[in-house]
């Protein structure tokens, strides 16, 4: 009994010592003289302060993982003299500096296995990489130009410079600066154009993260996004159906021969606006007129005219059906089936517009006819519902009249009965 009590007291004391000493030991192991000193000597915008938001620091990496040195040393000269000290890389050294870890598949597997490790290889194929390594151009972007230095974030983090919503602004730091870009002879209106484009509005105004930012077309580190042979074909990544139709169209070969980009030729690049049906046709603002004339010896004008008229017919039919159906809805009629059917008309219109990229009237017309057929059914049924509405009103009128006559007749009967009973 006595022995058991002593044993219990001993075990409790040992446990208490263990509990108290383990955190102290851990704290000693985590001492970071780099951060402590830099925090003290730098202002709020200094690297040590910024690094609090850096994904590397958040994942448990410290200053020495990049800059080398020894965190246990307090004297800066001793740190510089320490084995493995790398200090601050030059602009040209930065890609390899980051690649020490990011190109090391074995190392990255232990930290972020989902992250590719071919960034440096891709970067070397990009205009930025070529100019940096081959032309020794110190103005082109390296890793930190886009990812920032000490507050590097995952692209999913809203504060990150590479978050889709921040990307245009980030690229624009250089590409919108006319003075900075003067020697390269490329336009500096890309960000401005993109901001007003259908893609820019979707991403920047509506917050639709599915809309493309700069890197979705131009790639992240390489010259083009993965799987895209040429930037002119990049639209097909999202607009796959249009791209397929174009590949099978009569425009494919001449565009390639003439070196015309497949989408940009008609839709422009950064300033892409919502496409209009009027883009196809034989009068302004049809883009067909950029290359074709009525007597250019091709069927282009006839095809464009046929497609344009067909689309116009379907748009008008959809509008007419929509208007009639809205009237039926407004009158409180049950229109669910017709609403579904109208969606099919809308679907046919979208498909017909997509088929325009085949530049083949025989492909577009069947879809338009299907839409017209369904629009006619909607119109007929909506009109029937509106007629039904008035029929109900008339029916109500007759029923009310009939019941009112009955009420009057009964009232007269009541009066007669009362008179008879009184007499």
């Amino acid at each position, binding site marked *: 009994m006595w022995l058991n009590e002593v044993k219990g007291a001993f075990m409790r004391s040992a446990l208490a010592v263990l509990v108290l000493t383990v955190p102290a030991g851990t704290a000693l192991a985590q001492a970071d003289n780099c951060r402590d000193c830099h925090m003290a000597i730098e202002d709020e915008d200094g690297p040590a302060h910024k690094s609090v938001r850096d994904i590397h620091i958040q994942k448990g990496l410290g200053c020495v993982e990049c800059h080398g040195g020894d965190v246990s040393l307090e004297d800066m000269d001793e740190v510089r003299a320490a084995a493995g000290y790398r200090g601050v890389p030059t602009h040209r050294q930065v890609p390899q500096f980051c690649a020490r870890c990011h190109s090391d598949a074995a190392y990255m597997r232990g930290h972020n296995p989902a992250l590719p490790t071919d960034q440096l290889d891709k970067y070397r194929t990009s205009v930025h990489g070529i100019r940096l390594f081959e032309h020794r151009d110190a103005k082109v972007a390296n890793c930190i130009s886009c990812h920032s230095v000490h507050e590097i974030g995952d692209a999913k983090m809203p504060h990150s410079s590479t978050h889709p919503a921040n990307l245009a602004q980030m690229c624009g730091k250089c590409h919108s600066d006319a003075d900075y870009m003067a020697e390269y002879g490329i336009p500096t209106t890309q960000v401005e154009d993109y901001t007003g484009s259908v893609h820019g509005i979707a991403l920047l105004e509506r917050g639709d993260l599915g809309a493309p930012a700069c890197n979705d077309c131009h790639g992240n580190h390489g010259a083009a996004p993965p799987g895209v042979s040429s930037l002119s074909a990049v639209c097909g990544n999202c607009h796959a159906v249009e791209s397929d139709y174009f590949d099978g169209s009569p425009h494919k070969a001449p565009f390639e021969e003439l070196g015309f980009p497949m989408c940009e030729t008609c839709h422009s690049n950064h300033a892409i606006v919502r496409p209009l049906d009027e883009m196809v046709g034989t009068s302004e603002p049809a883009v067909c007129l950029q290359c074709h004339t009525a007597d250019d010896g091709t069927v282009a004008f006839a095809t464009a005219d046929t497609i344009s008229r067909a689309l116009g017919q379907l748009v008008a039919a959809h509008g007419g059906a929509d208007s009639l159906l809205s009237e039926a809805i407004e009158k*409180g009629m049950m229109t*669910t089936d017709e609403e579904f059917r109208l969606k099919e008309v809308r679907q046919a219109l979208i498909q017909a517009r997509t088929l325009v990229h085949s530049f083949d009237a025989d492909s577009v017309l069947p879809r338009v006819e299907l839409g017209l057929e369904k629009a006619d059914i909607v119109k007929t049924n909506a009109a029937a519902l509106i007629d039904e509405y008035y029929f109900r009103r008339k029916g*109500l009128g007759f029923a*009310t009249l009939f019941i009112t006559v009955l009420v009057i007749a*009964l009232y007269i009967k009541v009066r007669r*009965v009362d008179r008879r*009973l009184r007499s």
Partner: protein
Amino acid sequence: METETKDRQPTLSDRTYGWVNERFKLDALVEYMSGKVVPVHGHSAFYYMGGISLFLFIVQVITGILLLMYYRPGADSAYESVRFIVSEVEFGWLIRSIHSWSANLMILAVFLHMFTVYFTYAYRKPRELTWLTGIGLLGLALLFGFSGYLLPWNELAFFATRVGTGMAGAIPVFGKDILIVMRGGEEVTGATIGRFFGLHVAILPGLFTVLLAAHLIFIQRQGISEPLDWHALPESDKKHQKFFPSFLLRDLLVWLIVLNVIAVLAVLFPDGIGVVHWPLGVKADPFAPPPAVIRPEWYFMFAFQALKMLPAHILFIEGELFGILVFTVGGVVWTLVPFLDRGRAGDRSRYFMAFGWLVLAFIIVMTVVGYVVE
């Protein structure tokens, strides 16, 4: 007169009556009924409320049977069948609309009937059982409304039923069991439709018919209640009219007017209007987020709002449970009023009158607050 009757040839109706009378001794019943009278005074209009309720119930039965021909209970068929009724079946929209309008008007008529009976002290001896059967009919009418609301299996009905049955779950001790019995499981599912459907078209109509028959027999046996101040009047100053045919014809007249009102409402507002509405909307989806505003039917709003306004805890019990207990006690007191009010015939009871007004004001205020305050 007798000579005239003897002289003229018996008509078909005379012969039919004679045939039935010979077998079922109708003369005695006719003699008894022809002696029945209804008091005539300034508030005689109140006497029509019960008849209106009865008429609306008949409309409910007829339109309910018609709906039953196409309605298919079940999570996969209920919504579709109601949609078929209102969009494809000839006059299906009208039948559903009349069913819904007359259901709401019936609840309103039953409430009005109950309060007019209460405020005229018509529940007092000897009509205690008439009052009790009436309260039973009101309860069944509310259950009709609650069970029928889910049957279209649309979004609003689904979530309102989930909230409504969830309240039953707050009842101590048996709450959870009651909830599972009501829902046919932990959640509102197709099994709940089956139960509510059975309740709505079989159990409730059966119970309602029995109680209604008792209620009507009591009224016929005891006659219609006279106003309180008639007790001091000499018989010669009391004015009556014969139940047959005077009152019955007037009743029919009122029924026709109500029918006309229903016809107008059903055609002009097939999906209801304002807070009294039943649009089919979209099909119930248990995985969809609930709508921003879930409201019960207007006749449950006062209770729903009162429970919603209660704090999380009152004394040592949950606020919702406290509310349910108060409603239960209030309901019991209201039901037992004929036995609690010991006032003599002709006497007014200040306390019961105040209690009645308090209950009425509470219902009206809470209902209004429920619709005004989001």
